[in-house]
């Protein structure tokens, strides 16, 4: 027995001739070809990597030709409201303390031998003046974050 939706569907073609005409008219083979190509393309471009960098509407990243792969690191966001370390809005004076805490946690996690790999991702709007970014760079260098990753878009 047909369901209510099937009974009321505009695509429900009652007689056999009409059904044949409808599906032949749609050219199903080429439709499936197109769908297959679309599915293959989307699977190839599919990324299952974790998205830990959230792009907010108030920050427009600069675009470059050559980018490095985005690796999981602590994200420092410099916006008009202030400096965010991860999700937390902090004062500039507290940045060093916060970074020190992150470094301690990192050392506990990986051990003393791998501290040179520690880095941060700096996310800022493309029009941000260097005077706003400089204190973050200075604090990172002071604490021992040797690798700074500036978040950018692929051109």
């Amino acid at each position, binding site marked *: 027995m047909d369901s209510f939706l099937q009974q009321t569907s505009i695509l429900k073609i009652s007689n056999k001739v009409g059904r044949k005409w409808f599906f032949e008219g749609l050219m*199903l083979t080429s*439709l*499936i070809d197109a*769908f*297959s190509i*679309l*599915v293959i393309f*989307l*699977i190839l*471009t*599919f*990324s299952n990597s974790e*998205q830990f*960098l959230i*792009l907010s509407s108030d920050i427009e*990243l*600069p675009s*470059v*030709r*050559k*980018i*490095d*792969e*985005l*690796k999981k690191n602590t994200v420092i966001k410099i916006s008009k409201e202030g400096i965010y370390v991860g999700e937390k809005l902090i004062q500039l004076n507290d940045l060093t303390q916060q970074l020190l805490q992150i470094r301690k946690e990192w050392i506990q996690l990986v051990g003393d031998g791998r501290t040179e790999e520690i880095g941060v*991702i700096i996310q*800022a*709007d*493309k*029009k*941000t*003046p*260097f*005077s706003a*970014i*400089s*204190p973050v*760079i*200075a604090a*990172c*260098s*002071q604490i*021992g*974050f*040797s*690798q*700074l*990753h*500036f*978040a*950018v*878009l*692929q051109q």
Partner: protein
Amino acid sequence: MNSSTNKKSLDFHLDLIPVISLFSVCICFLLLVAVWVQVGTVEVRQAMGGQAQSEAEKRPIINIKMLSSGDLEIEVKDFQILKNKKELHRVTVKNVFLNGHELVNIIDKLKTIEPTLRSAIIEPYSEAEYEKIVYIMDLLRVYGVTDLGVTPL
């Protein structure tokens, strides 16, 4: 036995409607989870405060000073071959954001003289836009100068 009853038709009917439904669901899912913007990073290696001067080996390096006029002052350091060529020790690139190729030409020239050149330190002015700093980094990286540093104010 009648032979006609044994003849089974070789034609078969493949029901394409479920295939189309399956494909539609797949396409909808993949379109919803697709990431269209490719986010990456530009890596900068900062010198650490505790590093002794003697620890770091002397490598050819260029010091790029950004000026508010849009010009760049490029200073060449620790180039063994350039010891006697004073004219190449300090070069100015006029308005690099309009003449990016000029910086590229200089990097090319310096790379020809010193193929081991990999390092550059960028010294921006306080009002330099982040986009402009990244633009210079990108130009340097594209032409093989990959170890970059930024001098804080």
